[in-house]
């Protein structure tokens, strides 16, 4: 092929290895060429195990030469948010408090990706304990947006978004408790999928909020995300909360036909304070989806006050006991924005928390009954505003009030965590600062196929997802 092997999509990379067009070692070296040139400025990768990765790549190539049965991700190098446990390997969770932590178990999702033929070469930067929407990190250094370095990457899966955008890897796992997959996907110009709550096992994954935590991919396209979801979704006996729902063939359903798809655009909440370029990009994206046969209706979403109030306390309360010992013994080990945001969680009454959880089911039922009677999917901006800079959202060093700019980043993603709905973010343009804009598509429970189909059709007709950060132009 002409160009760089690291520019391939995940699916194309796996296909090229399987066909013998390229070796896994070549893919790895192409990714590392980008990493070596750009990571010192982006800071997406925080540790590497190159010898082990080289050995895995050589083994993958030997399997191809030996005509062995190959998995759907065979020979594809990956790196993940540094909170997916691999027995004996470093898993810092982005924190000084776990800078030497080596778990004794391997996450089910890692095991499933390995069984599909993928391997890892390192760990990715992230918000401390997956707790910010920006990419700030006191211990390992802030992650910088490869499209414009002073700007946020989004978080908490900051290194996942930045590394996929900068072509250090083909896919990275993120986790999403309030938007932590979709936000870095939007900010870094890649595609990120938060599955339905319970769709993917969380065994061996650092917990933040057991009611809201989700595991999912960030990749170059919706089709790549579909490939990964097919591998990682499904019940896991080691995670009793994982659903027994069958896993369909997500890729097969992505036929590009959107005739009959009913799109809803909320006129309340999601566009409050939205910036013009963001709204314009969303409207242009809707026009593309309409040309594929979709229809659009605009209406007020119900229950948004309840969703915001209840959803706003669940993760804060659930994080509190996990971190109580460290908050007593070593609170200064956290960034101020981490410990500062966790602190109020200790004062929220248990009765409020039980109310929020016990009403989650009824709220979902009422929301779904009203909304999904009218439409199949909802479309919103992933982030309402043009991206802020790291400095503008730096609670640790900024003036009082910085926290409001910081929290506004995740306003549009958090509601879908309380509702448990699947949602995907796809690139749909650039803001005046050259930073990507993300389009969020949310669907019914276990409706990942539907939102992937819509996202895939959009990416058939647009090439925002294929755009490459200018910083890579300097790589030989």
């Amino acid at each position, binding site marked *: 092929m002409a160009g760089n092997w690291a520019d391939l999509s995940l699916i194309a990379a796996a296909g090229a290895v399987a066909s013998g067009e390229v070796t896994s070692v070549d893919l790895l070296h192409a990714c590392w060429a980008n990493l070596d040139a750009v990571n010192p400025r982006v800071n997406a990768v925080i540790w590497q195990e190159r010898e082990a990765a080289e050995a895995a790549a050589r083994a993958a190539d030997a399997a191809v030469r030996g005509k062995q049965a190959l998995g759907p991700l065979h020979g594809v190098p990956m790196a993940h948010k540094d909170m997916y446990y691999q027995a004996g390997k470093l898993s810092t969770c982005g924190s000084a408090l776990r800078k030497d932590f080596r778990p004794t178990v391997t996450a089910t999702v890692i095991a499933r990706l390995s069984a599909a033929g993928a391997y890892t070469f390192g760990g990715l930067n992230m918000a401390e304990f997956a707790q910010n929407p920006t990419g700030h990190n006191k211990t390992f250094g802030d992650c910088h947006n490869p499209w414009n370095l002073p700007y946020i990457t989004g978080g908490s899966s900051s290194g996942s978004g930045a590394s996929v955008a900068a072509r250090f890897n083909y896919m990275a796992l993120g986790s999403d408790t309030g938007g932590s997959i979709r936000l870095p996907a939007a900010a870094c110009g890649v595609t990120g999928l938060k599955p*339905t*709550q*319970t769709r993917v096992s969380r065994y061996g994954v650092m917990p933040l909020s057991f*009611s809201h935590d989700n595991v999912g991919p960030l990749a170059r396209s919706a089709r790549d995300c579909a490939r990964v979801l097919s591998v990682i979704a499904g019940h896991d006996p080691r995670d009793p909360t994982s*659903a027994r*729902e069958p896993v369909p063939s997500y890729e097969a359903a992505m036929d590009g036909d959107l005739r009959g798809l009913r799109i809803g655009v909320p006129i309340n909440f999601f566009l409050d304070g939205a910036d013009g370029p963001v709204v314009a990009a969303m409207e242009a994206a809707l026009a593309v989806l309409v040309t594929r046969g979709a229809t659009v209706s605009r209406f007020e979403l119900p229950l948004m*006050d*309840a969703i*915001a*109030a209840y959803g*706003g*306390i669940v993760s804060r309360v659930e994080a*509190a006991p996990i971190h*109580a010992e460290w*908050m*007593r013994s070593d*609170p*200064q080990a*956290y960034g*101020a*924005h981490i*410990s*500062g*945001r966790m*602190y*109020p969680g*200790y*004062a*929220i009454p248990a009765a*409020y928390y*039980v*109310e929020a*959880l*016990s*009403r*989650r*089911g*009824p*709220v*979902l*039922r009422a929301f*779904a*009954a009203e909304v*999904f009677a009218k439409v199949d999917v909802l479309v919103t901006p992933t982030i309402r505003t043009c991206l802020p800079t790291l400095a503008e959202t730096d*609670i*640790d060093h900024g003036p*009082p009030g910085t*926290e409001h700019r910081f929290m506004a980043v995740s306003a549009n993603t958090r509601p879908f965590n309380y509702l*448990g709905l699947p949602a995907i973010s796809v690139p749909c343009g650039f803001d005046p600062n050259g930073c990507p804009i993300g389009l969020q598509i949310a*669907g*019914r*429970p*276990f*409706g990942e*196929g*539907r939102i992937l189909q819509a996202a895939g059709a959009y990416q058939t007709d647009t090439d925002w997802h294929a755009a490459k950060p200018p910083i890579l132009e300097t790589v030989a």
Partner: protein
Amino acid sequence: MGAFETSVEATIARWFGIDPPNDPARRLASELAATIEAFERLRGTLAFEDEPSSFEAALQATKEGA
């Protein structure tokens, strides 16, 4: 510091043995007043649901194709 903030800090110290680690913690704790107001506004708007596992049932009841 107002009475509300003093009360919040005392509650956290008494129940968890945790002191405010920094100024952002104090500022964000003071914003719990807004959380209380948000819950107050919801009073009477929803019936109490006493089956805490119903969220998983709701996912099934409202899922694609159900």
